[in-house]
């Protein structure tokens, strides 16, 4: 009996959960590339990575974001609480908008990044990669709020691409036409549509109660029939997000609670997110530490966006200065089909990447039919995004 209990409680022994959109995606799946996203079965590729990428950039893509961890925060002290938790000032955020944010531990090291949906000053939703309930609950001590996880209650679908606005209009959702980037609306049946996404393209994200998922999908699919709608997996999305210069926790930096080694944690300045930190707030978790870090120049790393000569993907490659000294590592790299360049995100050891930006090289090992080709390729530091699209921000949105 007791053993039974333990077994049923242990997530590690359970099969991965299926999202409300699972049947829709799996029925199109020809490849069988699944991965574990926060305990959910999530697709890496549905049919063809390249075609899926081009759906994002040329037509419309559908990506299942149901596994995103979602917390709901309500009550009198919601904003005070969020202002302690996160580094940005939520009071400045407007109702019905989404804010990209991050939060730190006592040492000013990043615990995670995420998006904050503001319904009102007393009601927010926080979406992120990792689970943080104990941290959130302990942070809530002394605040009059109610906080609960709604990951399993709310399904999410990301609709991205140049025809996405047209698809939604076809589906009768013309209400989206007035949405500027980072705005959202809540329509009847508690369906939330935000003009957000991880692609740097025109696009929307829908959050809706689980039981509406199937019908909603059918409606969208029907509406997109002649607009090139396509179900996609994470791999295609990943290319688009690198092109935009978005970082992913535990891929481009190690979150503080995941890091086993002392020097793997990163403060916001070290991952290129210093702009978020609002030092004019009287207090937030990690502020004391960040003050000290900045005052004494204790940051050791800098985030860099790189363009690499040639076409070889440079994932995980070491960056050298003068072809001799190791000065950093590439965290994510890809061939950008839109920029037609080999691009990468990297973490570099200061002062390289900040004061010293030239004479930088990467060493790439390309495996070609069981033989390695070793190359030193020149890299240059550039600004993100690698791919900048006007249609991303145009309001009303482009319709074709």
């Amino acid at each position: 009996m007791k053993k039974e209990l333990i077994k049923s409680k242990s997530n590690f022994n359970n099969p991965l959960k299926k999202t409300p959109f699972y049947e829709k995606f799996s029925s199109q799946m020809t490849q069988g590339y699944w991965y574990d996203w926060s305990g959910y079965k999530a697709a890496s590729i549905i049919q063809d990575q390249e075609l899926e990428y081009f759906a994002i950039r040329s037509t419309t893509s559908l990506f299942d974001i149901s596994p995103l961890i979602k917390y709901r925060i309500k009550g009198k002290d919601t904003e005070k609480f969020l202002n302690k938790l996160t580094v940005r000032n939520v009071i400045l955020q407007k109702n019905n908008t989404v804010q990209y944010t991050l939060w730190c531990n006592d040492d000013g090291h990043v615990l995670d990044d995420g998006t904050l949906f503001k319904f009102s000053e007393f009601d927010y939703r926080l979406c992120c990669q990792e689970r943080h309930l104990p941290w959130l609950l302990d942070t809530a001590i002394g605040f009059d709020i109610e906080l609960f996880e709604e990951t399993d209650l709310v399904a999410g679908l990301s609709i991205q691409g140049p025809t996405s606005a047209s698809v939604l209009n076809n589906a009768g959702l013309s209400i989206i036409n007035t949405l500027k980037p980072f705005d959202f609306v809540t329509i009847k049946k508690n369906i939330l549509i935000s003009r957000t996404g991880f692609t740097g393209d025109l696009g929307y994200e829908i959050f809706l109660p689980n039981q509406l998922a199937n019908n909603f999908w059918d409606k969208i699919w029907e509406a997109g029939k002649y607009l090139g709608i396509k179900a996609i997996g994470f791999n295609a999305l990943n290319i688009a997000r690198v092109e935009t210069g978005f970082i992913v926790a535990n891929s481009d930096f190690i979150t503080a609670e995941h890091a086993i080694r002392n020097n793997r944690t990163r403060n916001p300045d070290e991952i290129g997110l210093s702009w978020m930190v609002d030092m004019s707030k009287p207090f937030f978790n990690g502020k004391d530490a960040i003050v000290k870090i900045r005052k004494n120049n204790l940051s050791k790393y800098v985030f860099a966006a790189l363009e690499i000569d040639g076409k070889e993907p440079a994932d995980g490659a070491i960056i050298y200065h003068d072809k001799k000294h190791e000065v950093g590592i590439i965290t994510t790299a890809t061939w950008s089909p839109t920029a037609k360049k080999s691009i990468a995100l990297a973490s570099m050891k200061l002062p390289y990447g900040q004061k010293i930006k030239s004479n930088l090289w990467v060493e790439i090992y390309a495996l070609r039919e069981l033989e390695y080709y070793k190359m030193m390729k020149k890299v240059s530091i550039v600004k993100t995004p690698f791919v900048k699209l006007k249609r991303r921000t145009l309001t009303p949105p482009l319709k074709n």
Partner: protein
Amino acid sequence: MKSYDVIIIGAGHNGMAASIKLAKTGRKVLILESSSEFGGMASSNILLNDNVNQPLPHLINHLCSKSIKDLDLIKYGLKTKNFFIPSISVDKNQNYISFSGSYGSQIDGIDSNEKANWEKLKKRMFFQANLLKKFLYKSPINRENNSLFDKLDFLKTGINLRIKGREEFQEFFRMMLMCVADILEEEINNDLLRGLLAFDATLGINLGPRSPTSYMGLLYRLAGEFNGAQGAQIFPEGGIPKLIETFYKSSTSAGVEFIFKNEAKNLIFENNKVTGIKTQNGEEFFADIVLSSVSPIKTFFDFIGPQRLDTGLLREIKSLRYKGNVSKLNLLLNKIPKSSFLSNEQLSARITYTPSINHVEENFNPSKYQQLPEDPNFELLFPSIIDETNINDNGIIASIIIQNTPYSLKDGWDSSKKLLYSKIMLTLEKIFPDIKKSVLASKLISPLDIETIFNVPGGHWHHSELQIDRMYSLRPVFKYSSYRTPIHGLYICGAGTHPGGGISGKSGINAANQIIKDQKQNNHYYEKRID
């Protein structure tokens, strides 16, 4: 607007110690105290009847000569004539051993073999206590306080230790984390002696003699000194009230202002810098420096507040163990009690009811389940017999400290007090057959009472549990063991900081030194006052 250089919260002996150090540098110091008296847990707040009172503490063993000097206590009335108090460990069958000098330098009631065993063990323990002493009274070395000088000092101690020989060195590390019971059973045989040492190792903390690290409690006690006599327990002439009065006199003479019956309520701070304090009745007092001598639980939760604490720190503070387990029974007797086996002279000793290690352990066990012990251990002192200047027309005081009486009781304290009283009486009658009849007045103070009377959450002897995981640079928490807090200008002293509770004044002195050092670095200049 009332403004000061330093405002100290709490007129406990640590608050007063800090005030003396700070006022002597010319700083204008205010002490805000919630009760009507100075002395905190060592104040004479507890009335036995209309005319007689007896504080919680009755002996001291942590007031070192340097502190006495630093605080000018002799100048303000601390008598050099002090009483070294022997201990007599008794059981219910009229057996006893007597233990005198500074921690058992003479010992009666055991045979010569056992004496030799004891001598050997004592030598080793004192050697180790001496090492500990090097760290005991100084500010902890930590992330922030680690000047070259501090580090060298630390290193020197390490080298000294090593020079004493490999064997002693290894012995120290072997024994440091052990339970006191294993060590005693390894080295000595007499149950009463073992029982006494087991009691001394665990009094005031939530450990039994068979709990790992309980030996540290004994070392901590032995590392203490009173005016140069190490490991000695002292009854200061005139008792604790007189001693505490010298703190007060020294403090007021240094120019410190006291305000009583005014509880500090909220810290006033701006941009992470303290500017003052608001009291319960709405008054505001301003200063660049606020020093809180109250429990760290209160300082962090009530004064700074959870909203202003980094979550990791908040977790640490929340996890501090602060529930006390020591009660006090004060009795007023109509005459000197007659013992069936102890001489009148022996009534000037500390009499402990600590028959064996197992007895002390069995006392500890129920406390884990919020229950009272079957047959409580205690120590008993007759302050008015020890010191004739302390004699009182109203009667003879018996001051009894009872171990393992937890703050939270399953049956609640209201209904348990009578039971505890009768248990103690039962044992006392075995020593003093007629004692019950001569009780004129009695007062039993539980940890719960201590919490209310003295404004100490949990009523803990040390404000917060003093075990190895919360000693030295881990006290009260690692990040703030330098007597600082996350708010600039807000400092902490009091038993919850290093070196912990007991009357030593060291937390106050160390915190004051830290303040002086910090202000010097920030280019504050205070002229030294010329007396």
